[in-house]
């Protein structure tokens, strides 16, 4: 490397530095904190910081050691923020029924006997048992898989084994299944509509091709909100679609198209169709023009020529488009929120509900991490695929 070359590299690095710093701070850091928040649970550790060290030589099944009892009393005494204890007790009460009354009585006793030793067994006989101790100590770890498991409707039983959550506490798997199902339907619809359209666009030239392209690009460049609003207005009971259907006598009563699955599928297909057509089109226009005439001259029926030649060659575009449409579809939020009903909401709505509705960032992050993982895998396949040579050869 010459001297001038090295200087050039330094200059490039200096010009890249601001964006690298900005992306690290405001893109990577947020995504990293989604990952850490999803697996961290410091609530109990914050309330009982001393108990962990004191319980290291405890057998877990026998009565608590004197050191543990002293550590617990010290921990309770040194909590000056009632909310810290409150949050920990709420969490522990979920794991061990009756913990709230036990801790309430104990905290009161500790506070009334300021400075002196407290006999926990005398305050409440339940402290003789190992169960409440085990509940606290198991919760002390700042890391947990509880939220990640809950995101896919699993949890841990009292022995720590992974089990399915009861039906009243689980519904996420339905939302995930619905998200994937809707994304698959949208992908299928865009292939069905988009493949012939791309073939048509590749087979014409001049202004016809420009017009067909503009019909795709102008809606694609238009605001997502405007497109959703447009469909909202089209799909109403008195909207244009129903006016035409009733006016021509095709249906007697207006169809319900808004706030249900039909509206979501129509609007999502409209928004993702360009992502399907453009990759297929770009593969088709790169093919030699003489392929189909050559097949015809060898006696192949147009359908057979399409099936054996054009379709395999355009497969790369179809797969790229399908991955792109599917990947975009599983992350949709605005369309289902506006034209869908409560049974048409996707995983994004659930994440938004936890983050902005109930301020449960651990659950929001855990669900977000699952969505991020799915998108990441699809993107990895997509970029491999779009970067690799032609397949089907």
């Amino acid at each position, binding site marked *: 490397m010459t001297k001038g070359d090295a200087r050039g590299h330094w200059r*490039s690095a*200096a*010009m*890249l530095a*601001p*964006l*690298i710093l*900005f*992306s690290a701070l*405001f*893109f990577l*850091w*947020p*995504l990293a*904190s*989604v990952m850490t928040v999803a697996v961290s649970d410091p609530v109990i550790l914050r309330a009982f910081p001393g108990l962990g060290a004191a319980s290291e030589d405890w057998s877990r099944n026998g009565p608590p050691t004197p050191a543990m009892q002293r550590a617990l009393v010290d921990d309770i005494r040194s909590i000056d923020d009632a909310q810290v204890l409150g949050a920990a007790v709420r969490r522990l009460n979920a794991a061990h029924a009756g913990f709230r009354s036990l801790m309430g009585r104990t905290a009161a006793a500790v506070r009334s006997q300021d400075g002196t030793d407290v006999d926990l067994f005398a305050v409440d006989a339940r402290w003789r048992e190992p169960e409440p101790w085990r509940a606290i100590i198991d919760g002390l770890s700042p890391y947990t898989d509880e939220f990640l498991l809950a995101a896919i409707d699993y949890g841990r039983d009292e022995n720590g084994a992974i089990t399915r959550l009861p039906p009243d506490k689980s519904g996420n798997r339905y939302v995930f299944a619905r998200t994937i199902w809707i994304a698959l339907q949208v992908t299928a619809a865009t292939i069905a*509509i988009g493949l012939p*359209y791309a073939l*048509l*666009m590749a087979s014409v030239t001049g202004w016809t091709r420009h*017009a*067909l392209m503009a*019909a*795709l690009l*102008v*809606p694609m*460049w*238009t*605001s*997502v*909100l*405007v*497109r959703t*609003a447009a*469909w*909202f*207005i*089209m799909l*109403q009971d*008195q909207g*244009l679609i129903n006016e035409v259907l009733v006016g021509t006598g095709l249906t007697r009563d207006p169809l319900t198209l808004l706030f249900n699955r039909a509206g979501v599928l129509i609007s999502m297909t*409209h928004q993702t*169709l360009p992502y399907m057509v453009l990759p297929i089109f770009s593969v088709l226009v790169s093919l030699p023009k003489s392929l189909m005439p050559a097949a015809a001259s060898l006696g192949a029926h147009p359908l057979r020529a399409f099936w054996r030649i054009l379709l395999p060659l355009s497969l790369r575009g179809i797969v790229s488009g399908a991955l792109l449409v599917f990947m975009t579809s599983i*992350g949709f*939020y*605005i369309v289902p*929120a*506006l034209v869908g009903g409560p049974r048409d909401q996707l995983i994004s709505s659930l*994440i*938004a509900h936890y*983050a*902005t509705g109930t301020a449960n*960032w651990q659950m929001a*992050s855990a669900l*977000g*991490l699952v*969505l*991020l993982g799915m*998108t990441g895998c699809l993107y990895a396949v997509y*970029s491999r695929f779009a970067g690799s040579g032609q397949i089907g050869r």
Partner: protein
Amino acid sequence: MLKFLKGIYGVAVACFMVVPLAAILPLAFNDGVLINYPMNGVSLRWFDELLTSAVWKRAIINSLVIGTATALLATSLGTLAALGLRNRSGTFYSICRTAFLLPMVAPVVVLGVGMQIIFSRIGLLNTYTGIIIAHTVVALPFVVISAGTGLAGVSPVTERAAASLGAAPFTVFRRVTLPIAFPGILSGAIFAFATSLDEVILLLFLGSASQRTLAREMFAQLRDNLTPVIAAVAFLFIIGTLLLSVLSVVIRRRRSVAIMPE
């Protein structure tokens, strides 16, 4: 026969794409309180409300302020990075190239959760600065691509010619590189502005009522109480998009003329 069917099909799909947007345009001038056909006479009352009601006026100002700031920040960061990546190959640079495009792929809702966590820690929640930063993150990939394409059109031969005629490196950059790459940089800035104008999800996570933009206000209205002002806003957005598309075609024409003069 086949040709006829092909024609029908092309028109049908093109209609599916365009008719919903075209149908909303006349409704902006509807004199009734419902947004549907048949229209109730023509009036400008909804545009009047858009420009005079406090809520919409504030939304317009917010959109312009946040959009302009986003375009400025994203264009400076993105153009600088595109210059750094220019004519470079190697692992480090290709990692940068890929990494800078990732915000386009990451689900916005997940980004929103992460930013909410971070912004609440560093005090950017419910601030204009926070919104501008968030919008810049999602707008940057477009600027990096667009400015990169613009810079790729600048031939090193032209720059060397300028240098051999005695121009200092900065003069070459200012008088040769920048003017030729300018259309690309400009369309990057326009893309960044449009991205910010359209963004709702991050605003839902990171903004308060005082940072409501036009898009955010539309979202709220479509959710709660629909008024025909929506159609008026949509009218302005669609006309704006059409104008910008025409502008970008013109810019591209001029650019290709600038690179390859007769």
